[in-house]
């Protein structure tokens, strides 16, 4: 007999503490859709996505019904489109429109992979794709874009960094009448993982199999509740232990759902991404976990240490619960998607500088941060370069997803709605990195890259 307490614990996690499967993401390789004729390529892409992912949403809903676990998103990630654009030439926007149509017809809310990997330089199709991102994101609703500008092995492509500063700004400008939403669908990476199931940064890396199912779990609310239940007497070793045990249970659920989805769809199971992904819902916040550990407000001195422990304990607990762990795996610290982060920004305790320090120990980077609309492209490029440097030196993934709030100033707000949430415009250091950014070139690979 299953233990009564275990049953009640699981039910409480799902009903009260927002435990859910954040996403089932199907990765689909489009390498066999490459060709010199862009029309033919687009047609093949559409057909392949329809063929592979046509049943994805239905299968997701069936699993949700069977197990009684909410599965929030069903999504698709594809091969970086720059590779196809390089083969076919022509306007890459055509690919974006094809992805949009395919995503709409199979019923997924986001499709990732309007991407380019340019960490060492640009090859055919890369520059055209980068320059087309603002239009692609303003003319579609579901397409997500990501660009990898650096890695520990290669250093940082500063020409790409400079260009991405401009691309982020232009994307926000083109979607200014829609809360600058375009920039919320654009991620600039260093050390981008090839199997990340989370949007907006998901793409299907060239080293991946033809088709694969990856699962992203969630559950900040569950972790917070477990720490709260343990009380104030626990020392930090005990807290780390509680987080580990909770992460184990959350990940097991991801593993179960992933295996089931893979069996139903006849597609190999890739990885479980162990990330603690917050949502704007009350009680589903990573900031509130840090506060439960014992900070008056997220952003207080001690935040980085608490986050480091949380991030590490999540991985330790999760890694044994799944046969394959991958993706970003750790704690996400987006601002607009996390009610606790928004409160901390509004109260003045959480700044971009503190968030930057936090990104050195968490799973991603400066995420969903709203900055003043008049922030220059150079400053945005400077933000990207700083984050990429943290990722490069620490051999970890870092990313930048900032949203310039066109026409708005510090203290005003953007509201995206849904899982993207909303929040205040944060203060940005306006001192110009213009000369450094305009130098371009490449920051050489660090000594850490020579580990053979």
């Amino acid at each position, binding site marked *: *007999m*299953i*233990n*009564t307490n*275990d*049953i*009640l*614990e*699981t*039910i409480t996690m799902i*009903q009260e503490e927002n435990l859910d499967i954040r996403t089932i993401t199907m990765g689909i390789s489009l390498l066999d859709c490459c060709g010199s004729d862009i029309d033919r390529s687009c047609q093949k892409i559409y057909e392949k996505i329809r063929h592979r992912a046509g049943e994805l949403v239905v299968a997701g809903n069936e699993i949700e*019904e*069977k*197990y*009684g*676990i909410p599965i929030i998103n069903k999504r698709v990630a594809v091969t970086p489109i720059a590779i196809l654009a390089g083969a076919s030439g022509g306007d890459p926007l055509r690919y974006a429109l094809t992805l949009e149509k395919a995503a709409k017809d199979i019923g997924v809310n986001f499709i990732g992979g309007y991407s380019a990997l340019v960490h060492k330089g640009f090859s055919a199709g890369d520059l055209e794709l980068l320059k087309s991102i603002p239009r692609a994101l303003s003319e579609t609703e579901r397409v997500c874009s990501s660009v990898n500008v650096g890695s520990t092995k290669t250093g940082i492509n500063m020409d790409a960094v400079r260009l991405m500063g401009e691309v982020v700004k232009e994307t926000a400008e083109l979607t200014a009448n829609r809360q600058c939403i375009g920039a919320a669908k654009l991620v600039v990476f260093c050390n981008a993982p090839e199997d990340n199931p989370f949007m907006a940064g998901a793409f299907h890396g060239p080293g991946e199999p033809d088709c694969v199912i990856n699962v992203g779990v969630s559950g900040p609310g569950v972790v917070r509740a477990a720490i709260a239940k343990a009380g104030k007497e626990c020392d930090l070793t005990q807290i780390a232990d509680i987080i580990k045990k909770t992460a184990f*249970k959350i990940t*097991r*659920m991801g*593993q*179960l759902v992933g295996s089931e989805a893979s069996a139903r769809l006849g597609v190999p199971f890739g990885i479980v991404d162990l990330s603690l992904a917050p949502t704007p819902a009350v009680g589903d916040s990573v900031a509130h976990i840090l506060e439960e550990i014992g900070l008056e407000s997220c952003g207080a001195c001690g935040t980085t240490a608490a986050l480091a422990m949380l991030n590490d304990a999540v991985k330790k607990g999760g890694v*044994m619960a799944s046969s394959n762990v991958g993706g970003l795996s750790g704690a996400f610290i987006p601002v607009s998607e996390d009610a606790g982060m928004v409160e901390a920004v509004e109260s003045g305790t959480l700044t971009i500088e503190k968030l930057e320090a936090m990104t050195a120990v968490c799973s991603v980077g400066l995420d969903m941060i709203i900055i003043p609309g008049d922030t220059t492209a150079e400053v945005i490029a400077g933000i990207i370069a700083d984050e990429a440097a943290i990722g490069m030196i620490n051999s970890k993934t870092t990313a930048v997803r900032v949203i310039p709030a066109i026409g708005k100033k510090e203290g005003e707000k953007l509201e995206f709605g849904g899982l993207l949430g909303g929040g205040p415009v944060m203060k940005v250091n306006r001192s110009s990195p213009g000369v450094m950014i305009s130098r371009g070139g490449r920051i050489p690979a660090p000594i850490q890259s020579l580990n053979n």
Partner: protein
Amino acid sequence: MRAVISVVGKDRVGILAMVSGICAKANANILEVTQSVLQEFFVMIMVIDISNMNRSLSDLRRELEENSMGMKIHVMHEDIFHSMHRV
């Protein structure tokens, strides 16, 4: 295949009858029942065999929820508990 039905709420007459009646209609055999009343709160956990049910698990869930008499009723496949709580 088995599923777990849990019922939590204020104790009242007819809860067990309602749940077991719906299970019988669905041809789901009841394997185990544990129940306790803590103060005025009623907690019942029932394990049922769903291999020979004449409807889907989601239909059974819907029927139970529609007749919940103000109680919180959850129906979940047993796999989820095994995977979360057993190594």
